[in-house]
């Protein structure tokens, strides 16, 4: 058995050792009274008693703002206005103690950035390939959690390299992939005892049972697409929504982006930024025409994309049930209610 025990007192030493191996470590940290997933420098210690981080770890592979190219606008230079690729240092990123739902979300982002398009996205691929995911299972899931509806669970191992289980004094580290096994082998930690494994199994089973009966969203597929799109339900459903974009910002699978150029002095940068289907500018044509002119169309797009278009394309909805959008929506819109409605 390759499982090991990480005493809580040794977490910073463990992370220090990984840092020494060249990993850039991201994890949940306390920021202004909330928990966000961020890079952990040597001084910040990760929080491991939390429901889930407010900001998802998607920025590890898809930063909120990212440089794509640089260029000069100095006309006297022979290379003026010619874009050059940004040299990125090759850093292996390690996610420490993120939640299993967020680990699954990377699998969905892979579909968008590596499978769906006519091309693979090189910026995403570079960060993703070298990434290691250590997920901390959820001993006590939150009321807004519904990972089990989406094919996950509080101890789902999908997208996880090393599964962590909180056993009180320390964490049980169970390798899930070869990548995880190799990483653990190279680190001096005590092996897990049979009683550790048994205790973890009990916690995992209890948490899974606590989630209750799942509802299978794939039934959404049974209704004809155009009927669902034209449903008068959208007229009512969008009314409370203020189109603030909080849901798309916090969502671990929302991945729409905009590309913008910025120039300061002679130096220019072309970069990309997170975008949101909640804003009218996202689809506004230069002519003034907007194919999604009102809140109704924008609200419908978010849910039809996640719950129908993506399901038709990939057999899974574009949602991992993390519950962030439910928890932080200022007007209490609950995606679970929309799933129920769309199932008919």
């Amino acid at each position: 058995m390759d499982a090991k025990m990480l005493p809580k007192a040794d977490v910073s030493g463990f992370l220090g050792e990984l840092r020494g191996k060249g990993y850039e470590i991201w994890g949940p940290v306390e920021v202004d009274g909330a928990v966000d997933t961020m890079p952990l420098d040597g001084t910040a210690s990760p929080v491991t008693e939390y429901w889930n981080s407010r900001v998802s770890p998607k920025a590890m592979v898809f930063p909120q703002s990212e440089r794509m190219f640089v260029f000069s606008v100095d006309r006297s230079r022979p290379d003026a206005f010619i874009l050059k690729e940004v040299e990125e240092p090759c850093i292996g990123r390690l996610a420490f103690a993120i939640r299993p739902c967020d680990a699954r979300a990377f699998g969905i982002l892979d579909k968008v950035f590596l499978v769906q398009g006519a091309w693979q996205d090189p910026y995403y691929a570079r960060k993703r390939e070298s990434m290691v995911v250590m997920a901390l299972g959820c001993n006590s899931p939150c009321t807004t959690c519904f990972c089990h509806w989406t094919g996950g669970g509080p101890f789902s191992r999908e997208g996880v390299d090393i599964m962590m289980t909180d056993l009180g004094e320390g964490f049980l580290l169970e390798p899930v992939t070869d990548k995880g096994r190799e990483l653990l082998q190279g680190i001096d930690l005590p092996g897990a005892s049979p009683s550790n494994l048994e205790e973890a199994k009990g916690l995992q089973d209890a948490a899974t049972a606590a989630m209750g009966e799942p509802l299978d969203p794939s039934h959404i597929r049974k209704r004809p697409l155009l009927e669902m799109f034209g449903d008068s339900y959208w007229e009512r459903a969008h009314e409370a929504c203020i189109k603030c974009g909080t849901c798309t910002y916090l969502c671990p699978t929302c991945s729409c982006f905009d590309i913008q150029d910025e120039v300061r002095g002679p130096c220019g940068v072309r970069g990309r930024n997170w975008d949101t289907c909640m804003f009218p500018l996202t689809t506004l044509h230069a002519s003034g025409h907007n194919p999604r002119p009102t809140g109704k169309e924008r609200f419908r797009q978010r849910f039809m994309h996640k719950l129908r278009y993506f399901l038709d394309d990939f057999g899974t909805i574009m949602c991992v049930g993390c519950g962030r959008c439910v928890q932080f929506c200022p007007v209490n819109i609950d995606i679970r209610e929309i799933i129920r409605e769309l199932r008919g």
Partner: protein
Amino acid sequence: MNPVGEGEMERKNPYLPYPVRIDKITVETDDRSLKSFRLVFLKEEDEKAFRYTPGQFAELSLAGKGEIPIGIASSPTEKGHLLFTVNKAGVVTTALHEMSEGDVIGVRGPLGKGFPLDKFEGKNVVFIGGGFAFTTLRSTIQYMLHPENRARFGQITVIYGARRPGLLLYKETLKEWQERDDISTHFTVDAGEEGWTGLVGFVPAVTEQVAPSSKDAYAIVCGPPIMIKFTMPVLTKLGFTPEQIIMSLENRMKCGIGICGKCNTGPKYVCKDGPVFTLAELNQIPAEY
């Protein structure tokens, strides 16, 4: 832009434009709102790599301003350059209109799926265009008229209209087509004026008069929404089925390769699944374009 296999990814960045020089600028319309830009690749290998078919588009890239998706107006048979006709509408197009011959910009592509030329083989093709939505139609017609290609296609009929004679694009090329006997042309304007010898009338009405046969035929319809709206019933009356009617969509776009999530209309991405769709395909999906 042709997707590459695994392993090659390291070396190819689909967001990186090819540098090109503006070789020639032509003011197309008398209101100066449309200009054609003839672009020449700075590197010979880039020109070789840019293999396109009529109906595809590219992102024109102005460093410091951004990118815009524009249909390719030249035909692959017209070697040595690319042609793009651009309406002055937003930030990037306005900046492009202010540029001069000799300036360097970027081209990223070719992107999307072009017109189904293989299906057109042995068939009659009716082109119905209005206003400045005639760019990729020009590309397709030029391609089909090329001596190497002409024999593969049946009759070619072109119905093209604009509000005024001064707003018709590619006047020299239109004249060349009129002088040929292997293409039937019907150029029309909404309102005639002195010196205009062509037709007067809206595109749907002219289509009804020309009455192209739907037998063994495809109709390609590109124009403003109002023209499309009134042309469709005419085509239906002539017997064209939704499978025989082909259109090209536009939406706000960024990546152009199906990733950024901006241009979808229902489950389809205009950039990678289109921009060319049959009416039958469009009837199956939400109309968010």
